[in-house]
């Protein structure tokens, strides 16, 4: 199977769906780039090149560059979604939800319920999350807990190119609003990704490592750090299971409960601030419905309750590190 990057897998998923279904359109700031300029069209193809080439194949009626006006175009995508199109709209950095949140959480997410089941809103909002690029407080957040909190939204956080393609195709075919969160440090990782189109259902976790001593639930980029820790500890015969939920809403509760029923120990790794986070949400699930399985405190490895700092030394300390994950695992093993 051909190796493809996370970026390429996402681009391919969109292109294949656009070929399959003419109602799929791409909307966002510089998703092509160059409109109104003296140079080339498709000058960017998205700031990080994820949508590059789409305008060439599908034209400017289906790859629509917008002014910098997120409430306007995210809301436009939501309105288009319940009137005949299947927009894949890009919110460049997730940190920008502040200027368009109403159109997402009060409008798109609630139409179906408020209208008594009469609306369908097949909308995909793609957005970049996460730290690591020294992009500072307003360009490095994850904010997935906020979307997960909102009924009516589905939230997807692929950690690998293979999952990214399958989950995005699923998202585009899905009839509900889907928040698709791409971690900006993953775009260049590569793995085998089929050329053909395939879907991965929402709400199905995957175990990236299997083990019996401790369960780690990790999200998005954190899955890779958790895997590294699992591999390291395996050499000491500490058997760590790593679960990647892949979607936080719907969330695969069964997979987590089943794993802790075997391990009795849970560590959650979440690149987010701790309060009212996914880390808390998963810990609460364990304390409520997995309580009888638990043999040790549920430990959360998260970012601190602070904005994301700019300076590299501070940002590195901000992110959940392999070292902190390992410490947590050892702690709940009582070693």
């Amino acid at each position, binding site marked *: 199977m051909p190796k493809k990057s996370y970026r390429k897998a996402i681009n391919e998923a969109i292109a294949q769906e656009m070929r399959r279904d003419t*109602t799929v*359109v791409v909307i966002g700031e510089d998703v092509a780039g160059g409109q109104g300029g003296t140079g080339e069209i498709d000058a960017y193809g998205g700031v990080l090149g994820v949508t590059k080439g789409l305008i060439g194949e599908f034209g400017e*009626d*289906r790859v*629509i560059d*917008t*002014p910098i*006006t997120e*409430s*306007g*175009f*995210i*809301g*436009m*995508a*939501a*309105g*288009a*979604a*319940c*009137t*005949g*199109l299947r*927009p894949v709209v890009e919110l460049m950095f997730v940190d920008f939800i502040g200027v368009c949140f*109403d*159109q997402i959480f*009060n*409008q798109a997410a609630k*139409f*179906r*319920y*408020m*209208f*008594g*089941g*009469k*609306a*369908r809103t097949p909308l995909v909002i793609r957005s970049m999350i996460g730290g690591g690029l020294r992009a500072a407080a307003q360009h490095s957040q994850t904010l997935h807990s906020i979307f997960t909190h909102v*009924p*009516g939204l*589905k939230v997807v956080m692929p950690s690998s190119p293979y999952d990214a393609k399958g989950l995005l195709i699923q998202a585009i075919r*899905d*009839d*509900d609003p889907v928040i698709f969160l791409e971690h900006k440090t993953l775009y260049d990782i590569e793995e085998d990704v089929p050329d053909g189109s395939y879907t991965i259902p929402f*709400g199905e976790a995957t175990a990236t490592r299997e083990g019996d001593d401790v369960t780690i639930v990790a999200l998005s980029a954190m899955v890779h750090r958790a895997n590294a820790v699992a591999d390291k500890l395996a050499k000491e015969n500490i058997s760590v299971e790593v679960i990647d939920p892949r979607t936080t809403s*719907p969330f695969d509760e069964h997979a987590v409960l089943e794993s802790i029923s075997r391990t009795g120990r849970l560590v959650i790794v979440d690149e987010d601030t701790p309060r009212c986070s996914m880390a808390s949400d998963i810990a609460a699930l364990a304390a409520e419905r997995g309580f009888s399985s638990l043999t040790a405190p549920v430990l959360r490895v998260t970012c601190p309750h602070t904005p994301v700092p700019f300076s590299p030394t501070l940002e590195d300390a901000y992110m959940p590190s392999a070292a902190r994950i390992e410490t947590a695992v050892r702690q709940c093993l009582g070693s």
Partner: protein
Amino acid sequence: MQLTRNQLLEAYRRMKRIREFEERVHAEFSRGNIPGFCHLYAGQEASGVGACIHLGDLDWIASTHRGHGHCIAKGCEIDGMMSEIFGKDRGVCRGKGGSMHIADLSKGMLGANAIVGGNPPLVIGAALSNKALRNGKVAVSFTGDGGANQGTTFESMNLAVVLKLPAIFVLENNGYGEGTGFSYHCGAKSLAERAAAFGMPAVTVDGTDFFAVAEAMRDAIARAQAGKGPSAIETICPRFYGHFVGDPQLYRSKAEIEIARKNDPLRKFRERVAEMRIVDLSLLDVIDQEVAQEIEDAVIAASAASWPDIGQLDTDVYVAY
């Protein structure tokens, strides 16, 4: 302008329906039969009906918290609307939405909206769909003078111009956002002048004159269908009642309210058609009786209807989860 006799009769029927509907909602609310908040459209009928008279089910509109009139103007069934406002299972939204969220997509009605400035982005989205589907249909946003100051409205205007969308912004200036007057809350001379600066044709018309609104709409629709993009129409149309049912209206004088009521759009319509000698006023009297009966039936059905079953609490959140 080319409105057929039947269109005029239908226009009157819808204006009358709105008036009677709102008067009855006011009464039922005061009797405690309607939960929550209600914002009445009485006095503004000519704006909504004038704007919708040229539209069909495939044209889209979206409304505000003051949505009953727009729904009726667009052709929604008052039976389902009344039951919805009563919170009953047979309501058009199964009792889940209520007055501020009435919607009927099958009639091209994308919903009332309890967020001021909430609908313009959605409306340009509907316009984008129409443009993509090349169906020659338009999308109309109803926005109040207060909502016209909201950033979402401005962004949508610019975006509609940039993408040449078949969108029409009907800016209903009733002089107040809640208890704050236009002369205070808006720094521009008029909503039309400000909209024009965004790069679209914009006019101010008498929103109590059905014919003036309908004519401005015809031009806006023609422009949209020609692929030239959006237009804005500011309609001056004071409301008869307060901001919400129960509002003591301390912010406006009795005199001002009287003037508004003198400018009754239904009376004006009758006078105008009388002059034009196209429809016999007795036909309008018949409509009055028919509408009164419709409303009565809708209230009886709503009152008798059952509440939603608790089992519906967690349905309709997702198509599939």
